[in-house]
């Protein structure tokens, strides 16, 4: 390739050479380039999250209300169903912890819709990188900020009488990350289709609340009427909240019988879905939705 530089009337010859260097040295498309793109998209999510502290605070208000207001208010009533020594707040803690990442994940994907309206999406779409790396960066970025928010809530575990145990916290952290990733992938997939921010917010809100209520976040999965039992098994959130509650209850100082009563495994007929399978279901869903999102963003007008 012939050197394409002409000259650059700047003060130093070095800068003129720079132009040539950049042109000639631009590497062919490769994995490193894609990873760099993933990295910068991820970094942008973090910068924007850091500069928007208000969002971080406001999105913690709702789980806060659920845990402390609803949890305390209902504990007298709901306490009768619980064995002695188990607080209602402890019972709903895993569900509310999941809630703390719910909206942040889905709405972080909403910034794509925003970017489309304000043009920045175009800057990304015309770049010589695979669309896959943009979508992956977005999903990982959304998962990161949502999990960071979950960590704030994780720190409040003591108020719900959940012990500060390293294994438990690592487990919960990993599960939060998985949940956040899948939810962000869901949001990105929706954002691939929806071009208006209001519609995106309305539609995702409409979908997210039922998912939360049907997931057994606030009640145990055993002894439910058939219709609700079926719906909870269809809800993907069930398969992450189940393992989270299991993790919490196995680390409480209570008899095994209580654990089985309060955090029963998810059953399909008579088969108890192992925790590994349960988590795999969530991971596969996340990856599938991310693939759909990649396909959507790879289309050309």
């Amino acid at each position, binding site marked *: 390739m*012939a050197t394409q*530089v*002409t000259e650059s009337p700047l003060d130093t010859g070095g*800068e003129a050479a720079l132009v040539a260097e*950049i042109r000639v040295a631009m590497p062919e498309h490769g994995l490193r380039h894609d990873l760099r793109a993933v990295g*910068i998209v991820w970094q942008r999510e973090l910068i*924007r999250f850091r500069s928007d502290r208000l969002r971080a605070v406001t999105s913690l208000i709702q789980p806060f209300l659920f845990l402390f207001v609803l949890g305390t208010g209902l504990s007298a009533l709901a306490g009768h169903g619980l064995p002695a020594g188990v607080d209602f707040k402890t019972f709903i803690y895993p569900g509310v912890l999941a809630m703390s990442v719910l909206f942040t994940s889905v709405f972080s994907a909403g910034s794509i819709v925003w970017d489309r309206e304000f043009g920045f999406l175009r800057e990304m779409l015309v*770049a010589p990188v695979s669309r896959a790396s943009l979508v992956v960066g977005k999903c990982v970025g959304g998962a990161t900020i949502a999990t960071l928010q979950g960590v704030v809530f994780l720190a409040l575990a003591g108020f719900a009488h959940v012990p500060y145990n390293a294994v438990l916290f690592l487990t919960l952290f990993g599960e939060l990350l998985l949940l956040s990733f899948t939810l962000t992938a869901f949001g990105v997939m929706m954002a691939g289709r929806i071009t208006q921010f209001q519609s995106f917010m309305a539609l995702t809100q409409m979908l997210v609340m039922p998912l939360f209520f049907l997931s057994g976040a606030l009640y145990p999965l055993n002894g439910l009427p058939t219709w609700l039992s079926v719906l909870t098994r269809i809800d993907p959130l069930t398969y992450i909240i189940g393992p989270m509650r299991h993790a919490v209850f196995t680390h409480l100082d209570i008899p095994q019988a209580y654990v089985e009563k309060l955090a029963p495994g998810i059953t399909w007929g008579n088969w108890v879905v192992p925790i590994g399978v349960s988590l795999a279901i969530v991971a596969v869903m996340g990856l599938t939705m991310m693939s759909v999102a990649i396909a959507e963003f790879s289309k050309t007008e």
Partner: protein
Amino acid sequence: MTSVGADLGEVDLVGNGNSRKPVISVAGLTKRYGDVEAVRGIDFEVIRGETFGFLGPNGAGKTTTIKILCTLAKATSGRATVAGHDTSTEQEKVRRMIGLVFQDTTLDNYLTAEMNLRFHAALYAVPGDAVQPRMRQVLDMVGLWDRKDGLVSTFSGGMKRRLEIARGLLHAPHVLFLDEPTVGLDPQTRSSIWKYINDLKRREDITIFLTTHYMDEAEHCDRIAIIDHGKIVAIDTPQALKASIGKDRVQIQTADDPAAIAALRDRFAIEAAMHEGAVTFSVASGEEFVPRLFAELAVPIRSVSVSRPSLDDVFMSYTGTTIRDAEASSSDAMRQMAQRWTAGRR
């Protein structure tokens, strides 16, 4: 270090015969959106190092063409290559070669100017050690180096456009696309943007493809293509296009315009039409014609103006309308459509 023209000349001499090679070449290009044919079979070539302008009213197909060249849209038929790569089959290679400045801003307002550029550098795989010096170079060029830490949301419209131009150049593209680079800016900012673009042509070996609907901006181009209703109606240097008309434009205001038009036809065999609120026509030598006009036209004349052919006249002679009329009628049409739409919803 500032003997710019000479240096560019030298490049042509040593440019191993490539300098006249087309950087952009388009053949039989069409684009259809449903029933609407936005581009109806256009052909043109852009030579390396030239500034090529697409001139036409809004809705003529300029932005659609740019979108196809930038791989943002697929052509319905025909072929386009940029820097030797097919825009529909070698999208990534094309994207690597081009810089883009869109009509609407595509900056992230919540990031600093520097972070916007760093984001771009990563997506375009600018080598890590070249990012900082190159960033300084392009920001210096548009006079924004001292504002690099400012949030883009605090920038004025002109600053944003300048930052976008800097960003479009960051990865040293072979072709820079500017879609209406000065639309929506005040005249002073417009002229400063043009100063940067002209500087750029001198500094870097770059081909510029731009669209505009401002006649005076088209004058900055080495060659222009006049596009109207999705077709190229003329393509040449601004000088050659003006010379091709060879006529002066006369505009008169009269007490009775229709009568004046009729009288011009009967008396002088001149086809006149209403443009911009005045009876407008072209004659070979305007100054000599005006005394005859006063002597022989029965309709009282209130004012008269004679002008040398401008690009406006070129546009008019090729399309039968002035660009302002074309814009007005297209915005009329849009207004009517909007009215119909709201009426239907009521």
